[in-house]
């Protein structure tokens, strides 16, 4: 291209002769260089395009449906190549070829996840014996022919228990990733997946967070089928149904929904399934992540599903007409719907005498109140209404506080921060340092900070009581909610004294009343005069003889706690 060109002809430019004097990029040499590199780029991309086309052609030698990576053919070599491409860099995938019926056979499994002894004895040996029996027999006998389909092989020759015929490639790939082994034989367009999963897992151990004094102490572990087994061992009811779903677009984790068919609240199961079906994420790692998609009020601090590690709690929930959700890979089960009463009950209540259990339940209610409000009440009374203390007590409190430099609100905030830091530290510590840390904590929060004159001893007592009260809550998530609520209450009491505390109490009550968990109101059962009969098991715990009816609020289909009318439990 010449310099200037037609499009700069209109510009009167008497002094400039060459464009490149002013615009270095417009020089001819530069343009030539750019052109050469452009040509090279074009050639390279053409070559790349050809190569991609070749690869695609290689992969798509046959017509495959849109959602399948490929389809199986009867040629084993092709199938194997395709599978090797899919499991490209998976170094732990094992490919074992052998002979069966005179043909080549291929066994694919994930190393470490399959029971190789089972595979050897029940799959490879019978199939290999087919081959050798062919060889050793005389020609007079009819040689064993490869049966027409995998189903016949599975039914007649193989000794493994859990086998599935797979025709689709995606199903086969999923089966291998779960831990089954895939058997392909040259000449058959189907594969056989054998469930011989045997991997390392945690033993059934004691419940860490929900220890009970006088009851069973088994807790769930991370394998779904083991957890279901723990439940089945406790109830031999055929009406306990298990529905298995898959969650997670990429991770495809298994999820089990458990319910009792003739007791579950009508409509509840369908609602749970509907909410699960609209989840579209690539992975679900834990139960908590799943719960956030299921609940109605994600912004509320209160837990709206009951999480538990214990199978007996799950069973009790099932028999009240609720639905349990267990996710593979997490040792907790979620039970919906959940109300305030549920969060405040433990299994221990049913293991000790009713009168004592009732008093302990009432005390737990008081402890919940103390856990939220005690620091706020302390700040309100010492700063706003000291007239409410009796005179000798007011004098002694004033003397205790005479040395501390901070106003009571600041003191309470400092102690709260220290307490929260301490609680977090204890959770995260390695076991060896735990002893030293607890000693530092006791010194810092207890004695020394008082002696240094920074905090007054009454506040230490208040904070310690609050912390203890929040630990006594049966449900960990609920106690976290209470811990969090302390801060706004503290701020409210620092602004408006006891009036603010009462207003905060009202706001929390309204909020709790407005929460719903799958159609159940969170707090509604507590004082609903229509449901006063539920008090027998929520506010108090009456002897078991009187607990003949299920709690009305969960709406189970059958209200009395006995079997079916006919004495049968099957349906």
């Amino acid at each position, binding site marked *: 291209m010449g310099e200037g060109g037609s499009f700069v002809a209109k510009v009167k430019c008497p002094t400039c002769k060459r464009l490149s004097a002013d615009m270095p990029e417009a020089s001819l040499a530069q343009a030539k260089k750019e052109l050469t590199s452009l040509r090279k780029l074009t050639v390279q991309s053409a070559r790349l395009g050809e190569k991609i086309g070749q690869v695609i052609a290689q992969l798509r030698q046959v017509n495959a449906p849109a959602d399948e990576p490929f389809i199986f053919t009867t040629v084993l070599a092709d199938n194997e190549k395709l599978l090797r491409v899919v499991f490209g860099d998976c170094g732990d995938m094992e490919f074992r070829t052998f002979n069966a019926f005179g043909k080549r056979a291929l066994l694919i499994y994930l190393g470490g996840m399959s029971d190789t002894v089972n595979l050897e004895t029940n799959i490879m040996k019978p199939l290999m014996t087919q081959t050798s029996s062919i060889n050793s027999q005389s020609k007079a006998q009819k040689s064993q022919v490869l049966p027409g389909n995998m189903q016949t092989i599975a039914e007649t020759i193989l000794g493994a228990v859990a086998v599935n015929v797979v025709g689709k490639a995606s199903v086969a790939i999923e089966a291998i990733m779960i831990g089954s082994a895939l058997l392909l034989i040259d000449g058959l367009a189907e594969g056989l997946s054998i469930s011989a999963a045997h991997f390392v897992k945690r033993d059934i151990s004691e419940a860490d967070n929900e220890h009970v004094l006088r009851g069973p102490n088994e807790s769930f572990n991370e394998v779904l089928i083991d957890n279901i087994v723990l439940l089945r061992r406790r109830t031999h009811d055929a009406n306990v149904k298990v529905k298995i779903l898959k969650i997670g677009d990429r991770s495809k984790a298994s999820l089990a929904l458990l319910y009792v068919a003739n007791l579950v*609240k009508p409509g509840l199961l369908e609602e749970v399934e509907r909410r699960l079906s609209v989840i579209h994420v690539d992975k679900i790692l834990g139960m908590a992540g799943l719960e956030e998609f299921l609940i109605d009020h994600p912004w509320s601090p209160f837990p709206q599903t009951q999480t538990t590690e214990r199978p007996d709690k799950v069973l009790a929930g099932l028999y009240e007409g609720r639905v349990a959700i267990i996710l593979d890979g997490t040792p907790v089960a979620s039970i919906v719907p959940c109300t305030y009463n549920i969060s405040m009950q433990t299994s221990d209540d049913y293991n000790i005498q009713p009168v004592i259990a009732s008093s302990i339940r009432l005390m737990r209610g008081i402890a919940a109140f103390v856990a939220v409000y005690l620091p706020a009440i302390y700040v309100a009374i010492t700063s*706003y*209404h000291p*007239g*409410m*203390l*009796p*005179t000798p*007590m007011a004098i002694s409190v004033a003397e205790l506080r005479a040395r501390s430099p901070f106003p009571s609100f600041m003191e309470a905030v400092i102690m709260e921060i220290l307490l929260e830091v301490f609680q977090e530290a204890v959770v995260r510590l390695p076991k060896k340092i735990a002893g030293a840390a607890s000693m530092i904590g006791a010194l810092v929060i207890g004695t020394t900070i008082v002696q240094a004159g920074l905090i007054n001893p009454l506040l230490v007592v208040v904070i310690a009581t609050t912390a203890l009260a929040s630990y006594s809550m049966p449900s960990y998530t609920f106690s976290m909610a209470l811990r969090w609520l302390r801060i706004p209450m503290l701020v409210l009491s620092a602004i*408006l*004294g*006891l*009036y*603010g505390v*009462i*207003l905060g*109490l*009202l*706001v929390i*009550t*309204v909020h709790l*009343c*407005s929460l*719903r968990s799958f*159609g*159940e*109101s969170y*707090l*509604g*059962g*507590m*004082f*609903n*005069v*229509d*449901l006063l009969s539920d008090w027998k098991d929520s506010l108090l715990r009456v002897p078991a003889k009187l607990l003949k009816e299920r709690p*009305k*609020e*969960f*709406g189970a289909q059958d209200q009395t706690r006995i079997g079916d009318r006919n004495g049968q439990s099957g349906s």
Partner: protein
Amino acid sequence: MANLEAKTYMSPLQLGIVVIGTCVGAQVMLSPRALITALEQAAWLSIIIGGVIFYSATYLMLTLGRQYPEETLVEYAPRLFGRLGGTVVVVWFNLLFFLQLIIIFSGVGKIITFYMFDRTPPEVVIMALLIVCTYCALQDWGTILRVQQILFFMAYGMLTMIWMTSILNFQPENMLPLWPIKIKTVINGGFLTWPFYSGYECVLLLLPLVYRKASFAKLAKIMGGAFGCMTLFFLMIIIIIIGVLTVENAKSVPYPVLIVIRSVELPGTFIERLENYLLLAWIPVVFGTLSTTMFYMGQVCMRQYRYADHRPWVLVLVPIIYMGSILLLDDQQVYDTVSKCALWTGLGFSFGVVPLSLMLSWWHKRKAVARCG
């Protein structure tokens, strides 16, 4: 049966509890002085007479509601009174609630500022309570019903318990002479107790929500029980006020309830300043009244203008209520005028509009029957 989604029906017992919750409110603290000044020793008798009078008004309202199941006053008033008359009736109805709200808010602001705080301005107190009441009034009816039930058991229980400690100072002789000398003042005084009982007009709004299956007799019985409870409660308050302070003393203190509690000394315990405890137990009671009244106002506006949701109306009402309460704070004369206004509005509604609508509805029915006949 399960308490499934949006609670659209409630049982008569729950209606009774809601009515008690709406009626027994702040007036317990604000009104005794006016009543005792007017009636002296015979105040207790007027409370009983007032209970009977206002129960009969409620009975009329229940009968009226029975003529129009599934509809609230806002919907059938235009049919009875014509378009203009219907609007007048609905505005009157709403005005009832509005006047009560601003009177209660400013009264609460004054009491709490004086007795619990020292320098906090009453506007802050009113604003804080208004925010909390708005938060509750924005919820649906199911939530409010549950809140009312909780408050009924916990707040009223605590209030009664604290109030009962003042029996320690009760001197029965201050009550004598029991029998009044002038009967006419006593009957008049029955009407004067309207501020205590006000709030029962909400029955006109709430009737469609009660189970269809509930029979009229059961409703009437439960409302009778509710009124009985309320009468007992107010009686307790007035009798103890007169018994502990004498009539003369009760006339010269602005809030006799607090003075009664102040002089209580619980033997052997360390609890002091019981009036703070009483106020703290009283605030949830007031909250119960205020939040339901705001909800009713929102509902009336919603039905009048055919909206689907009462929430925008509640939010619109908030600044109006705030302005109204502030107005009443500064000037005692305005407060007295508004109280008198509220009294006449209430009495006029209960004894003017409601019997009139009942008669009109009977007349309409008879006309319709005659036409069909």
